[in-house]
């Protein structure tokens, strides 16, 4: 299999796949790739990424693998193709999600402590139904409350490949005299 054929097959597979695929999965599931090294596959994936850089679709790497998707800046123009409007999420939901993402594993009580407000069951239900958040265990304190963490599906949805891509937000200085007066 020459590099051109390899690239053709990988490209077709990534376009046709019903979900994101890692290099390992591609090697495993495509019979002709059995003899191809993982390194060669990764090299071709990078070539494909470069090839599509300026196209209407791009090859991106998210948490669960590589997938082809449309350029983010075309989102608004493409929205007309679907009757349903994309979901919008409330500030309360996003703050809860951010807390779980940054402070995982975390209990509901701990979320409430930071947000100063009781966490609605609806929000936790939505986060779990979307499969962005899951229960990963129980905290060893009285009542053994559930511990929540984010899932790869969360990263995929927000186009992240790793939790480490979340920016550092701990800025202890942010509410001091200087910054407070500099605001506005």
């Amino acid at each position, binding site marked *: 299999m020459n590099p051109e054929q390899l690239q053709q097959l990988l490209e*077709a597979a990534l*376009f*046709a796949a019903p979900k994101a695929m890692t290099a390992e999965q591609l090697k495993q599931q495509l019979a002709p790739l059995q003899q191809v090294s993982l390194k060669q596959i990764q090299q071709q994936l990078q070539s494909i990424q470069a090839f599509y850089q300026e196209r209407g*679709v791009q090859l*991106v790497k998210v948490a669960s693998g590589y*997938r*082809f*998707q*449309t*350029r*983010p*800046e075309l*989102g608004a123009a*493409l*929205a007309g193709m679907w009757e349903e409007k*994309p*979901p*919008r*999420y*409330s*500030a*309360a939901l*996003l*703050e809860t*999600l*951010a*807390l779980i*993402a*940054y402070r995982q594993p975390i209990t509901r009580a701990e979320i409430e*402590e*930071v*947000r*100063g*407000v*009781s966490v609605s069951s609806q929000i936790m239900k939505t986060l779990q139904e979307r499969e962005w958040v899951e229960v990963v265990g129980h905290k060893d304190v009285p009542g053994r409350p559930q511990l929540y963490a984010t899932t790869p599906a969360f990263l*995929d*949805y*927000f*186009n*992240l490949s790793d939790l480490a891509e*979340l*920016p550092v*937000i*701990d*800025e*202890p200085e*942010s*509410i*001091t*005299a200087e910054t*407070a*007066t500099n*605001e*506005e």
Partner: protein
Amino acid sequence: MSVAEQQSLPLGFVRGEAVVDKPEDLYIPPDALELILESFSGPMDLLLYLIKRQKLDIVDLPILNITRQYVEYVEMMKELKLELASDYLVMAAILAEIKSRMLLPKPPQQDDEDEEDPRAALIRRLQEYEAIRKGAEWIEQQPQTARDTFIAEVESNAQQHIEVTPPAVELAELALAFSRVLQQLDLKAHHHIQREQLSTRERMSQILQRVSEQTHIRFSALFSAEEGRAGAVVSFLAILELVKEALIEVVQVNPDSEIHIRQRGAEAR
């Protein structure tokens, strides 16, 4: 980062969008309160807004003013019977507690380190909350699936080529299944399996198979020399068993002619 942030501090998110229209002073027309409160995600959000709005140094927090403002909000909420009120009341209580502790003369302390500024805990909470709110804003601004990016869906003829691998079965599983069947049975009689019987039953299947293909088979063709005496016995037992079970017929046109076997009722079809 966002345009809204550069212009002025957003009041909060409404449906994910920063709201810049914030009340100019503490007076909020009662009919607008619900809408404005909806744009705060909770008491921490409101408190942070009040502090930022007054360009206050949180370390030198004028708790009295903030508390007064806060309580006014809470009063309005109570009037409007907003269900949010309870969480805000907790915050008002915290503020009032801090205020009272600040006003009271400090009891003489043996160890100064034990006495924490009552505002410090609140400041820490506000800082942590603000950090998380930044995180939430950042996440919200990431390209979202089905809003900003759409996953490519491409047709493929691959489905026509899918080969379904059938499940694997171990011989032991089969034997286990049979012993299960036997256990289910009302164990009365003649269910014993012997090697000999099995050979006979296999031969029965083979003979049946042959007569179904050929209709008539010479009796002698059912025996083969290579199998020896044991083989002949098995074949013969199988033929007898098949005759007994009325599955085949043995026919002989006249006493000297070759014996044939045929499927029972074959002529009926």
